[in-house]
């Protein structure tokens, strides 16, 4: 089997619990080599725990993880060389400068420093002017850029990015995603989690959505979006609505804009006229109406019942 035919990551029946609470429940999915794969879910869904089990930071209760065909416990020295991880929390060693820390990090993976690769990472992530600053003097955004460079310094075949754009400005987000696409085109498989669903929609070929430690969806981004079918209709009213009338339940309503609007997910069989007739019948006055195709946020909301933690 050639390298490209071996799946980059196979997670099989993975379980983890803390103090009797199941955080990850029999999770199974496969990421093919060369994919950009998104793992989504609300806070506490078990995404980071899963990533930590894959990378070796968290012990696996039961189940297995295979990275390019190698078990990550039996052959951890190989799987860790094949994997680069950027953790969600900022993890740095305050004693060293960016330049020194990057050189050292390659050594942890048994690699001789490759100045050309190191300089490419430094250049593409805009770290050049800050190379000789010690870590604690860096801004949050720079620390995140450094963490991405650190995750890539040993040229991993599987790059794991856990919330890489959390709390960073739009410039860095765009730079980062461009770079991730470039790295992916060079052959690196990417597993990422993000709270920015729009980014996931644009970046990922396939998506897995977790909720309460379980997989609630796993499909290509296109198919996930088409799964809802129909369209989204948002109706604004002349007054605030405190509770959603039960008569509207068949239209899957969600209160938005602090109760001044309702968003509906209409199936293909239902027309907007049907909806407006029902609303008028309830004595509500619509002041504005907007129709659009469903996006990932709608899918996410439908599958997890939560949108509070995502943007």
């Amino acid at each position, binding site marked *: 089997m050639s390298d490209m035919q071996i799946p980059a990551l196979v997670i099989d029946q993975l379980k983890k619990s803390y103090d009797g609470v199941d955080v990850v429940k029999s999770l199974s999915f496969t990421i093919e080599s060369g994919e950009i794969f998104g793992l989504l879910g609300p806070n506490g869904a078990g995404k980071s725990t899963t990533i930590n089990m894959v990378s070796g930071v*968290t012990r696996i209760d039961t189940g297995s993880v295979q990275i390019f065909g190698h078990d990550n416990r039996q052959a951890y020295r190989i799987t860790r060389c094949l994997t680069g991880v950027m953790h969600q929390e900022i993890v740095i060693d305050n004693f060293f400068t960016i330049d020194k820390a990057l050189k050292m990090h390659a*050594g942890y*993976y048994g690699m001789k420093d490759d100045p050309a690769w190191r300089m490419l990472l430094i250049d593409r992530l805009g770290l050049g002017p800050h190379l000789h600053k010690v870590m604690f003097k860096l801004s949050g955004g720079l620390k995140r850029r450094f963490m991405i460079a650190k995750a890539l310094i040993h040229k991993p075949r599987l790059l794991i990015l856990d919330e890489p754009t959390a709390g960073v400005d739009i410039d860095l987000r765009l730079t980062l995603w461009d770079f991730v696409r470039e790295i992916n085109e060079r052959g690196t498989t990417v597993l990422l989690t993000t709270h920015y669903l729009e980014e996931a929609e644009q970046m990922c070929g396939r998506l897995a959505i977790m909720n309460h430690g379980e997989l609630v969806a796993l499909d290509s981004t296109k198919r996930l979006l088409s799964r809802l079918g129909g369209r989204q209709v948002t109706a604004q009213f002349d007054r605030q609505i405190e509770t959603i009338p039960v008569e509207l339940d068949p239209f899957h309503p969600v209160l938005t804009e602090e109760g001044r609007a309702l968003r509906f997910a209409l199936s293909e069989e239902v027309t907007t006229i049907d909806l407006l007739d029902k609303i008028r019948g309830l004595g509500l006055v619509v002041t504005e109406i907007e129709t659009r195709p469903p996006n990932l946020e709608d899918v996410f909301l439908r599958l997890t019942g939560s949108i509070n933690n995502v943007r």
Partner: protein
Amino acid sequence: MSANSRPDNYIPGRPFLTLLHKEVRRFLRVSSQTIFTPIITASLYLFIFGATLGERISVLEGFNYAQFVIPGLILMGVINNSFANTASSLFMSRYLGNIVDLLVTPITPPQLILAYTIAAMIRGLSVGIVVWLVSTFFAGLPWDAPLTAIGMATMASLLFAQCGLVVAIYASSFDSLSMYTNFLILPLIYLGGVFYPISILPEPWGKLSHLNPMFYLIDGFRTAILGVGDLPLWLSFLVAGIMSALLFIWVVFLIGRGHRLSS
């Protein structure tokens, strides 16, 4: 890199050497705390016990008090600093969360332990050498068996470097880290015969002191330097060797399981 193996340019041993290099650089970067402060503290002891009391007291026949206390002070520097290096470095990594930088690398638990331990031994023995150099201004030592003395100092630093790793793993806060230091390590050192020969203690304190592992280290080191001591040298080496081996097994077990390092 082939997906079926480690990188083509993988250099075995490099992860270990990198971590060792990093650990040595870490304590050198803060050498004012890690090297010079212990030297100043030891120098103050030397001044008190060497320049002021050294000529006036004798607790061991044929030697003045300065000559008696200097081997103990050298070893105290070695032990304190070997312990402090691993304890603070590993605990800080746990506390700041950057231990995950090591957990995701191919470094094996024995490599991790050896890198931390050897770096701590380098710091401990460096402090010991400088304390000895400073002590030459106060009293000369006969150096009866120099290689044995070096061997005993090395054993002591090895043992307490690993002791520091155990403490770093079990400590849950800076408070508990200093509790281990203040309520376990320091009493063991001070009651282990740095400042007095155990043989002059009344019973039961003399016999109780034989339960203190520090006594074997300090007495062995002093015997190697002065040529006289309370215990045969082989016994000191045996106790130090057994304790080092047991601690190493314990640390390998803890770090191998990721105890309090991974969740």
